[in-house]
């Protein structure tokens, strides 16, 4: 094959090009020709196609995501907002924290272990590229039906991949979710998040400036991994019947990534980089065009200098390769030598592949011949933008009219007891220890809270005890019933979880997992969810700092439940004041904070007992969430509570069961006036938490709640070795433990 150089392309305007196979639409191809004033070369076509894919360009979601910026609340803590590799917030004492959640859904379905592993690797490099030391990871997961044979393939592989990669990197896994629902059968959701810490002055940006500065590619050699992966995987539904289209799988090497992290941190310490970008989806195409586009524009790259694992790769393939564990840095000429020496120390391969130039073109050469000559902004930042049509689905009204509050309720205390046991044993409510025990939560020696606590928490300063906390949540069932409210509930729950741990919620990252944007129903769900999230962030004062969109999560015509996953980052000035969930001291008083209403739409009860999804999700009251959070934070800071657990799916009884099992102590509960036992135990009203108050603090605590106007109802006491509901039933802890802890091993071990 002859090399398709720029010169050759100019001379052969009518040559056939595989733009369709690369996922481009006819008008997109036409636009590329217009931008260049000629037909693109093969390499240029590869770059545009991969960078203009849904995954890289956000072409369907962009118009909606803008709200996160437009509605962003005033927040002094925000140091770097949306648009960079990850957002950065100020957490005090000169520290800045960067965090983000990303999806690796489609690759994890094809090859669960490697898909999940490289998902962790990718998000960690994003955080690293900001200049931060990664300090923890989280992994919100969604799988199909727990008893489906394919779940037995996908789940253990995903969990082993996340563990295998994260454990080997030395990053504690401090939280996440595991949710089962048959809507995810052909589309498991593998989201991964990472938190990084740095000093303010160490923040780095992905931009190439300063003509003459060198472009250095370092890390693993480039191979044929995931060639075409981004465009083929993310712009079309994965279709099992066409194995020929399966792209080469990306394989991760966590050991290489660990070296990359340490090497990069040493490079940062010596202040050797002017700009830096990780290589993720779209590999070098993305890194070079984004760096150049964000800088002054000019860059020249000698592609044949790239270290290859497979010598037969064509230049197009090298540009598209998604080989893992690579980074690209912009380095001043007099610092190159030191940069390369540090790489050598860590056994990391590094190569100068080009330099920043005066002009405004990204030019790429292959053995001296020019194969790319483009304005980088048109590749990286000025891709197509779609205003996809959307409309409220015709079935939405009927779904909401199918009221879960009208479902038959337990006839007597005995049936209620049986349903409670079924609930705590159901796969979604059961203990996830079998999964989370495969993750290292202790490494780095700073973990204060991890699973099964409400939020993960790590200390970031050994002297002052400054710490950060994170929780991720998202309830696809709620979002299906009402995407606007569902997205707000996801935020409210994560926010509440962080506050329950004693940390102050500060900022948000999200991963928006939806079906095909070409379906107006799905697009409506997406529009509603983003609007709901942006509005709620504004009210709660927590800006969205970055995130990720994953579309085309569907099998055939059927989309997954709309699943906005929200991560809230919080800060705590002194981690010794953190609040655990365990009820550990007999005699402490249990208070229910917030209001309980009859709210069963989308509830765990409606799913487990009736296999039902209908009605409206619980109502959201963001002012109440804010007040609840303030009380939880004050109470923890001032030592008024010894335990707190937020209430979410499964309601009060689920929270009490978890807190009792964690502390190894029972609880005696009294149904408050005005509530029936069923509603008291199982309703999923938002804005609530249960706290354990030492008797000596009761007055101070209730006074505070009273003064601030937060309903606080005394509902019982920590006592004995059973969960007793007075006048109704009791469940010995051993029986509760067996129900809660044997389910997942029974399904998977």
């Amino acid at each position: 094959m002859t090399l398709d150089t720029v010169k050759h392309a100019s001379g052969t305007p009518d040559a056939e090009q595989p733009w369709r196979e690369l996922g481009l639409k006819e008008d997109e191809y036409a636009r590329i020709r217009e931008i260049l004033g000629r037909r693109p070369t093969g390499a240029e076509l590869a770059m545009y196609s991969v960078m203009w894919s849904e995954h890289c360009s956000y072409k369907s979601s962009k118009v909606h995501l803008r709200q996160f910026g437009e509605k962003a609340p005033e927040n002094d803590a925000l140091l770097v907002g949306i648009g960079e590799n990850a957002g950065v917030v100020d957490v005090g004492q000169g520290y800045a924290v960067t965090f983000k959640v990303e999806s690796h859904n489609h690759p994890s379905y094809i090859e669960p272990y490697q898909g999940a592993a490289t998902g962790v690797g990718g998000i960690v490099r994003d955080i690293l590229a900001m200049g931060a030391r990664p300090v923890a990871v989280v992994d919100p997961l969604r799988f199909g039906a727990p008893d489906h044979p394919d779940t037995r393939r996908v789940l253990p592989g995903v969990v082993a991949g996340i563990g295998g990669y994260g454990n080997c990197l030395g990053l504690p896994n401090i939280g996440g979710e595991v949710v089962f629902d048959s809507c995810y059968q052909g589309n498991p959701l593998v989201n991964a998040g990472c938190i990084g810490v740095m000093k303010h002055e160490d923040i780095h940006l992905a931009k190439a400036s300063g003509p003459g500065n060198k472009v250095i590619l370092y890390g693993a050699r480039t191979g044929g991994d995931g060639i075409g992966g981004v465009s083929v995987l993310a712009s079309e539904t994965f279709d099992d019947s066409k194995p020929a289209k399966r792209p080469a799988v990306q394989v991760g090497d966590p050991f290489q990534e660990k070296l990359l992290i340490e090497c990069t941190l040493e490079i940062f310490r010596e202040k050797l980089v002017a700009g830096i970008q990780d290589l993720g989806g779209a590999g070098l195409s993305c890194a070079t065009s984004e760096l150049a586009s964000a800088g002054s524009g000019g860059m020249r790259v000698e592609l044949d200098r790239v270290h290859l694992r497979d010598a037969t790769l064509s230049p197009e393939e090298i540009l598209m390769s998604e080989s893992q564990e690579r980074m690209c840095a912009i380095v001043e000429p007099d610092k190159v030598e030191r940069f390369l020496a540090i790489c050598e120390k860590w056994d990391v391969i590094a190569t100068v592949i080009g330099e920043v130039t005066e002009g405004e073109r990204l030019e790429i050469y292959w053995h001296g011949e020019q194969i790319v000559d483009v304005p980088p902004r048109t590749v990286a930042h000025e891709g197509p933008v779609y205003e996809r049509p959307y409309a409220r689905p015709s079935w939405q009204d009927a779904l909401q009219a199918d009221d879960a509050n009208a479902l038959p309720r337990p006839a007597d205390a005995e049936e209620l007891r049986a349903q409670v046991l079924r609930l705590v044993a159901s796969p979604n409510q059961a203990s996830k220890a079998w999964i989370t025990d495969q993750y290292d939560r202790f490494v780095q020696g700073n973990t204060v809270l991890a699973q099964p606590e409400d939020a993960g928490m790590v200390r970031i300063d050994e002297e002052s005890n400054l710490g950060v906390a994170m929780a991720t949540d998202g309830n696809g069932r709620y979002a299906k019933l009402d995407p606007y409210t569902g997205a707000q509930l996801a935020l409210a729950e994560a926010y509440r979880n962080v506050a329950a741990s004693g940390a102050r919620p500060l900022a948000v990252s999200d991963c928006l997992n939806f079906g095909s944007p070409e379906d107006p129903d799905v697009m409506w769900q997406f529009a509603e969810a983003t609007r709901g999230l942006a509005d709620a962030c504004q009210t709660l004062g927590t800006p969205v700092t970055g995130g990720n969109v994953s579309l085309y999560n569907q099998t055939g015509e059927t989309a997954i439940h709309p699943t906005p996953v929200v991560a809230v980052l919080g800060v705590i000035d002194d981690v010794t004041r953190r609040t655990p969930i365990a009820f550990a001291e007999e005699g402490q008083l249990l208070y229910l904070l917030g209001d309980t209403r009859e709210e069963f739409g989308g509830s765990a009860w409606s799913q487990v007992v009736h296999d039902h999804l209908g009605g409206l999700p619980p109502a959201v009251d963001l002012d109440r969430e804010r007040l609840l959070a303030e009380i939880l934070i004050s109470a923890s800071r001032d030592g008024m509570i010894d335990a707190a657990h937020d209430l979410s799916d499964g309601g009060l009884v689920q929270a009490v069961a978890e807190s009792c099992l964690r502390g190894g102590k029972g609880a005696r509960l009294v149904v408050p006036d005005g509530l029936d036992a069923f509603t008291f135990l199982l309703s999923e009203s938002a804005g609530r938490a249960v706290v354990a108050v030492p008797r000596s603090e009761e007055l101070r605590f209730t006074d505070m709640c009273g003064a601030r106007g937060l309903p606080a109802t005394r509902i019982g006491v920590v006592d004995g070795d059973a969960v007793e509901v007075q006048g109704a039933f009791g469940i010995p802890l051993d029986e509760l433990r067996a129900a809660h802890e044997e389910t997942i091993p029974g399904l998977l071990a």
Partner: protein
Amino acid sequence: MARVVVDVMLKPEILDPQGQAVQRALPRLGFDGIADVRQGKRFELEVDGTVDDAALARIHEMAETFLANTVIEDFVVRVES
């Protein structure tokens, strides 16, 4: 009783970090002249009865669906003599 061996190796285009780590260590240990190392798995199956064509076909299927992950691995089935 007969022994059938199934060798499972990563496809040539797939990254083999284990093999690479081994290869990079060799010169340090004083072993030169090894240009490449790939690490894979070897399964030894003890089969009841004789291994006829039907049995081999079944083992082939087993390797394809279970012992190897054909998304990233190739395999070879052989009867050990």
